[in-house]
């Protein structure tokens, strides 16, 4: 089974700084692999352990995704090789644009049986690139998958929904978006990290993948920190009997209503 696992490079969330005017600063936030995509890569790696074939990791973004530490990171998690479309014109893509670029890259890679995606990206969490990508590739597409089992040239998946878990059989090629329940992403060992440095990584420009038409479908007007709700902050310090009594009397009035 030839598998392509898609991942997004996002700014390290804890290093995003909120400036006094509410604007966000990404200066200190290094590029890293979106957490939910690690589940997708791991799912690909685990499938590869039971089926023969290739596992390729794929990502699209600006030139900043083409970083040696990042490439080593993804390659130490199971894929044999890595493909990237790294082009500064791919800044702030919306989900539809992302799907189109991924499609172009996948068509360049050629043959595939299964495409794996995370359920959403950890930064913007629109939860759509997987589903849009499957549609533009015109293949069976399913999200919310918590288990994948190969079965006679097809796959059987467990899909966890709000009130039910359904078992579906899907013909290949197909696209599956996985949940975080599906597995625990591995911690790369020393040898995996060393070997990662030697695996092939191909970096393409937009022209290399056929320069797909990419007009924006979403206009972002603003991104800023929300104004904090003003709270009373009436805090009792300490848990002596008196302090607890004081606390209780304060909240009794509120809870009584």
């Amino acid at each position, binding site marked *: 089974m030839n598998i392509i696992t898609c991942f997004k490079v996002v700014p390290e969330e804890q290093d995003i700084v909120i400036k006094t005017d509410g604007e966000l600063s990404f200066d200190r936030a290094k590029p890293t692999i979106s957490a939910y995509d690690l589940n997708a890569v791991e799912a690909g790696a685990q499938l590869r352990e039971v089926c023969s074939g290739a596992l390729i990791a794929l990502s699209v973004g600006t030139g900043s995704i083409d970083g040696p530490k990042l490439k080593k990171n993804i390659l130490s998690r199971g894929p044999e090789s890595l493909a990237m479309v790294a082009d500064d014109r791919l800044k702030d893509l919306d989900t539809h644009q992302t799907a189109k670029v991924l499609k172009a890259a996948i068509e360049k890679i050629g043959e595939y049986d299964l495409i794996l995606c995370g359920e959403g990206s950890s930064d913007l969490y629109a*939860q759509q690139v997987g589903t849009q990508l499957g549609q533009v590739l015109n293949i069976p597409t399913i999200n919310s998958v918590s288990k994948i089992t190969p079965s006679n040239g097809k796959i059987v998946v467990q899909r966890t929904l709000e009130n039910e878990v359904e078992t579906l*059989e899907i013909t290949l090629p197909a696209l599956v978006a996985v949940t975080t329940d599906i597995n625990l992403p591995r911690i790369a060992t020393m040898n995996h990290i060393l070997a990662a440095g030697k695996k092939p990584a191909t970096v393409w420009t937009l022209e290399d993948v056929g320069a797909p038409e990419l007009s924006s479908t979403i206009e972002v007007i*603003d*991104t800023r920190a929300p104004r904090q709700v003003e709270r009373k902050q009436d805090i009792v310090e300490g*848990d002596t009997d008196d302090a607890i009594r004081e606390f209780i009397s304060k909240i009794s009035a509120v809870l009584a209503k």
Partner: protein
Amino acid sequence: MRTMVLAETQKALAELCAGVSQISQQVEAVIIGDQLKAVTDTVWHIPAQENALLEDYTETIAALIKQEKPELVIVEPTKRYKLIAGRIAAMLGTSVITDVLALGEDLIAKRMVYGGAAIRTEKVASGCTIAMVGSGIWETKSVTEVAVREEKPVQFIEPVNRVTRIARDEKEKAAVDLPGAKIVVGVGRGIAEQKDLEMIKQLAYAVKGEIGCTRPIAEAEKWMPKETYLGVSGLMIAPEIYIAIGISGQIQHTVGINRSKIVISINKEKNAPIFKQSDYGIVGDLYKVVPALIKHFG
């Protein structure tokens, strides 16, 4: 402005139709078969197909939207509809605006990004706006069943790619309706062991509240069902009163509860971020405070 509404559950259909009518005069529900009862004057009726999954109606709904060109399509944010909406957006050459926090007549939407650290204001560049809107975003009384004045039939279109359902198991439904609860008690990592949840249950009972938790309690420890975790990728609630117990107050959690009218917290760390987001609180050991609360309110 004309809006079509897609929903899987009756509750959401009613809520969304009533809510969006605040910004749109013409609201039309899209109903498949007779699973849901109409709550709008005009209903687009897709005949139910045998053994079809909801996803099998994607092409049909997309064609309807292409043909009728409503300015706005509101969708219930279920997992199935996230898939369907994404696929429809791909077919129409647009993107869905998901987890909408606010949506105005100008079709400018607000949603949370960066784990709750920021709010993004955006709109579609052109064409139809497809927006996924959760419960409680529009404050409105639910509309009950109405007599349909106009039922418009929709031609079913065969799906191109079908999957086969082999089995279907009902999940043990969380008997809790957290978004609807007036009082919610939240537990976090301050709880040392699963058995200590008993104490929290007693407190919730005493104050007549429901119980929710932070993500680690549901996902890492698995002490409570996933459906009860409150936060940026879980539930977003706005109860009258939220009582945070042993919760430090990380932003990924607080964005899920900071629309509460009153926030009360118990934490033993003086500098826990939760206190800045609370109206009332006590810096103390929850194992001392909670039993005292149970005694007082019980």
